[in-house]
């Protein structure tokens, strides 16, 4: 009997192996595992056997049934896989065709640069603050040690607003630098102060590839007890390192701005020639990035901050220059012509 069961199993599995369709499989199940199958008959007839034989034949029959059922399950899965694969072949896509486009908008490269610069200074405790574009002569010039006849005014040709002047604060103008916000901060806040002041600035200049009547700057100011020029260098060096990269050479040299003393200019190694000298850097190997210095005692006094107790530094830089250097843009007007073929590149 046991050998019969063994034979029955071998026959059934061989048959199963050849099956390729669901109908055949069902037929096989009925034949091999169905109510009228030989295996079922054997199982049903177990009761008629002697106890010892019943035990051994019963175990063998159950084993065979388990094996066949297992085979059936596996076959079902295999057939399902074949069926799915066949169906999938019918549903081919061309993966090289473009996807359904999402509408993409971008920040203007100037905005993006301002955010990036602010982020760097934010992380050093500087907070963004803003001031008016239309400004009094006082905050733009007088409060910053730039009286009417100062030669520094010559390089900041001013657009004047046709509104009656204030008797204390002078005529109204479009700010020529964001340092006007520094003058306001010094006047309105108490130390400790750490702020950055991004914004639009204006010059009375004809438009060409390097000049537009409006452009962007960011100024910064840190005032507290014990702030030194070493802190100025460290802070601005950290900015340069993070914005232009670890390996970019940075240079600090003496320069003059009326509202600071000592005055500092920070330059970086030319991004085109890496310091060897080229047309972009005027063969000097260096590109001026910002002006800075220790806050002038006179400026602090005007804001009622005692220069004997407090010290600090101020800096200011052009924003437009930064993406121009980074992306190799050679015409500043592109920023304000708002051609989507330009703006969509960033």
């Amino acid at each position, binding site marked *: 009997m046991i050998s019969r069961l063994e034979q029955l199993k071998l026959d059934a599995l061989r048959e199963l192996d050849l099956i390729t369709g669901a109908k055949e499989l069902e037929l096989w199940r009925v034949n091999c595992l169905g109510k009228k199958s030989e295996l079922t008959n054997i199982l049903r007839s177990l009761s008629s056997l002697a106890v010892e034989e019943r035990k051994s034949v019963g175990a063998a029959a159950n084993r065979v049934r388990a094996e066949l059922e297992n085979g059936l399950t596996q076959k079902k899965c295999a057939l399902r896989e074949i069926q799915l694969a066949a169906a999938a072949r019918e549903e081919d896509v061309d993966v090289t065709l473009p996807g359904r486009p999402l509408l993409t908008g971008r920040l203007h490269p100037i905005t993006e640069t301002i955010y990036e610069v602010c982020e760097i200074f934010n992380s050093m405790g500087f*907070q*963004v603050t803003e001031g008016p574009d239309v400004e009094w002569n006082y905050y733009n010039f007088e409060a910053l040690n730039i009286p009417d006849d100062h030669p520094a005014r010559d390089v900041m040709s001013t657009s004047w*607003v046709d509104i009656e002047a204030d008797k204390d604060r002078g005529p109204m103008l479009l700010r020529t630098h964001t340092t006007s916000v520094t003058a306001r901060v010094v006047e309105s806040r108490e130390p400790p102060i750490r702020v950055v002041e991004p914004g639009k600035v204006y010059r009375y200049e004809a438009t060409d590839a390097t000049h537009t009547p409006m452009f962007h700057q960011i100024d910064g100011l840190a005032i507290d007890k014990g702030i030194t020029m070493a802190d100025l260098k460290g802070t601005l060096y950290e900015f340069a390192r993070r914005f232009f990269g670890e390996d970019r050479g940075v240079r600090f040299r003496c320069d003059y701005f009326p509202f600071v003393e000592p005055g500092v200019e920070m330059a970086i190694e030319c991004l085109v020639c890496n310091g060897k000298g080229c047309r972009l850097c005027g063969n000097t190997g260096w590109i001026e990035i910002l002006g800075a210095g220790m806050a002038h005692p006179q400026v602090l006094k005007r804001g009622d901050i005692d220069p004997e107790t407090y010290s600090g530094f101020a800096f200011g830089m052009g924003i437009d220059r930064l993406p121009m250097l980074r992306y190799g843009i050679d015409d500043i007007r592109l920023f304000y012509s708002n051609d989507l073929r330009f703006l969509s590149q960033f």
Partner: protein
Amino acid sequence: MKISLKWLREYVDITLSPHELANRLTMAGTETEGIQFIGENWAGIVIGEITAINPHPNADRLKLVTIDLGSGQTTVVCGAPNIRIGSKVAFAPVGTQLIDGHSGKSLRLKSAKIRGVTSNGMACSEKELGISDNHEGIIILPDEAPISTPLADYLGDVIYDLAITANRPDCLSIIGIAREVAALTGQKLHPPDINYEEATSPIEQQISVEITAPELCSRYCASLITGIRVAESPWWLQQRLLKCGMRPINNIVDITNYVMLEHGQPLHAFDYDQIQGRGIIVRRAVADERITTLDGLERTLSSNMLVIADKERAAAIAGIMGGIDSEVTDGTTSILLEAANFNPASIHHTGSALHLPSEACIRFERGIRPELVPGALRKATKLIIELAGGKAAKGLVDVYPGRQEQEPILLPTDKIRSLLGVNLSTDQIVAALTPLGFTCKIETQPSGVWATTPYWRSDINQAVDLIEEVARIIGYDKIPTTLLGTTLPSQSPEPMVNLKQRIRCSLTGYGFQETVTYSLTGLEMLKKLLPENSLEPPSIRMANPMTAEQEYLRPNLRANLLTTLCSNRKHEDGGIRIFELGKVYLPRQKDLPDEPEVLCALLSGSRQGKSWHDGNSLVDFYDAKGTVEGLLHRLVTNPDFEKGSDASLHPNKQAAIVISGNKLGVVGELHPRVREAFDISEATYLFEVNVTALLPFTTGHKMFRPIPRFPAVVRDIALIVDSGVTHYSIQSNIEGFPLVAGVTVFDVYSGSQVPRGKKSLAYRITFQSPDHTLTDDEVNQVQQQIMDKLSRELGATLRS
């Protein structure tokens, strides 16, 4: 300012290479903007003397010129009109790199037969040498030029283009730069020789000087030279002026310019015989006084301008320009030479009022010191005697009402530490300041240095000025680099900065490109926004507009943005979505303008990006409104929309954006008239939000609502209402009922399936209770109440 290295070497020994010198000056505050090497490419060119000129056998205009080079003679073919026997010339042998006189390109000189005669090289013009554009004839060198010497040794030079900062007028001179170089490189300055032989008659007997406006003239000096001959300047002097960018005129004028470049002190030469009454009066101009200046123009002066006058009339505008009547001419034989110090502000105002900027003006308005005056005057007098002949009267006239003693300034050592972050001893401070000309005295209580400023410096007024001097001499690179270690100020971000960033990020996420346009705009552009003749000119006008397009501060963003749309439409035929978030400028009484931050955005063209995929529908009102809703839902609760009345928008396709009862913006389709005016062909949608006004509504604190635990029941109803009934009225009626958790419109229809004048709206209403599962009966009851109300209030019926 242009500085010749050869000239500089007369006053200081220079051991550094030209590039090293440039770098030292730059680092210490005098930026080198350019270096020009004259003679860099003159390898092989030597000085020769013409010994014979013979006719060319085949050409009348050409000559065969024999040149003695010291080492031998050579013959070249030359067509220059200015050759003569004995002339010293620059000879270039075959193979020399030269600039082509015609094309201006650099070429290598080849051996050539010119009309059948071989030329063994050539005598060069200034243009061929790259000195100037002169190609009229060859360069004729002075007679003393040594034969066989390389031209580069004789004529070569390095010209620095230096950017002198506004605080250092003393550096607008060769001697000023020489002082810097000396201090930076540990060399000594060679003082200029200003001694000359004086005649016996004292100058006071021949000229008197009176200053009636001492507030505008702190010092006035003059010398008198008689028996001079006005002529062309010697070659070397002309060359130096040319290298520094000045045009030679005659020996007298050239000497005044030369000394100005060397000493930084402007001078002016009068024809002494034209000075009426032998007296100079330095006075304010009389209102509307007229003077014809050297350029031949008659100028009208005002009383805040200073003139140099004789007894009868103004002879010069002080520090600006001389008068034509006292001009030095070829016939002049006596010179009254002026060197003076004028008030910087006055010179600045006069120079700009008369539009007469000049080298002299630049020096005066930056505040050169009056102490420079006598030295420069003596040097110029000496040169005139040497180069134009004549005799100088004994002494100088020196009227000096503005004399001020330089007070020493105390520089405490701990001030250096607290400002620079480095410790320096008093000895180190003295070692830094002394080479710059400061007289130093060490102070022990408290530790510091008393420093007296040298007479030529006008920029040192307090201790911090001395600190900069010390820092730039020791070098900024010697100052350490530290990060701020002071107290972190309390961090309270400006809400507006934050809000602007959130709005920009949302809109770029919605597919809008940010733009940045000029804050200035023109009337023509603003007119396009409104019906004809209805635009009031905006109130904030520029006093000095650059162009008509930049005459007014923008009162809105839309004019600029529409212009941007139009210009992009010329090359972009797909969907365009752009926005700008920036200030507009609105006038206020007796104060700076109000500068609210405004958001303006435009949508036009197709709704999706261009693709091969199905559908290419165009944007409509609801795309614009959807964007506004999406944006505002993240910032505020419950924005409402009411019918709007913006004159630039389509009268029936616009809504006012209302937040808590305040109209803060608009959304709508552009009025066809406006569209036409901006040359935009397709329907365009605009929205605008006053972000400054929005700000207070965005700062509210949000509270969490629990997610419902009991299942919702959803019912759909289709209503028929009159066409005029708004969705809003239906929705707000439904929303008021208990158990209603949400209501959304999912279909809007008008057409043949509903009676004329009616429309159908279908709503999905969600019923939900926070505390139990709803039964059908409960929901049916509320739904019936809703229908009753809608029918009563709005005449709605159920669509069957």
